[in-house]
């Protein structure tokens, strides 16, 4: 699996405008909506679901990355996007550090396996400091996509 298998290229956000948690999540959801997803659904519904999940425990897992996520019936397969914040966003992370790399995952209601496989894949990439460094230095959607299209080292 590669991150490009589920990240929606057109929804990648090379530079987030938002600087706070809720705004960042809304910006990522809007980006997916503009890429053609969530038709017939109020995107606020999805934003609320993601924020509700954050209340159960921050998805800021440390090392300047966060993996906000939710299940939602508006998708029939797992989709995601990647967003970068050069300035960093306070996200109640486990290590107290701001988040610079966001990976948003939205999966169908009844397929926990897809979500877990994506978590494994995302974690293998984000553990790679060289990968995260390259991501943070990328300034275009194309550059980010190129990185996501690489396979994780064994």
């Amino acid at each position, binding site marked *: 699996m590669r991150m490009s298998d589920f990240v929606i290229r057109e929804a990648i956000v090379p530079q987030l405008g938002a600087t706070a948690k809720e705004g960042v999540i809304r910006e990522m959801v809007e980006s997916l909506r503009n890429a053609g997803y969530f038709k017939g659904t109020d995107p606020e519904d999805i934003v609320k679901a993601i924020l509700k999940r954050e209340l*159960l*425990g921050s*998805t800021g*897992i*440390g*090392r300047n*990355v966060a*993996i906000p*996520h939710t299940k939602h019936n508006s998708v029939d397969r797992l989709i995601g996007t990647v967003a970068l914040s050069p300035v960093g966003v306070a996200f109640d992370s*486990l290590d107290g550090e701001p988040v610079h790399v966001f990976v948003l995952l939205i999966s169908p209601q009844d397929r*926990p*396996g897809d*979500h*877990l*496989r994506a*978590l*494994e894949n*995302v*974690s*293998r990439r*984000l*553990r790679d400091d060289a990968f995260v460094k390259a991501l943070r230095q990328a300034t275009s959607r194309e550059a980010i996509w190129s990185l996501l299209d690489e396979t994780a080292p064994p």
Partner: protein
Amino acid sequence: MRMSDINQGGSVMKQPATAPPESAMNGNTLRRTVTIVNPHGFHMRPQMYFAQRAQQCQSDVALTDGSTRVDGKSPLDLMMLSTAQELTVEVTGPDAAEAVESLAAILAAPSADEEPPSPKKG
């Protein structure tokens, strides 16, 4: 809460396939093998609870699915085991006895909503 294959002391029923002997293994190493019964699997919430509890330990904490062995104190490392259906926690150090039980309980919980009390409250 259920556990399976509970091991006492240093004996193990399942040896991680490729795990090399670690330098910390000459200490007091305790292991528990747990079947994941949460229908959502070993997802981010139990991973975070596990990492937070492991970080409170003086001891070293490792988690393995039999082929991949990771640092139990790192949420990003734990996430590499998200699809595992059976996990073995290994705790080596002075507080291993207490820690291995509470870490195994986190893995064995049927629901993240029934997690043991947060370390910050406990």
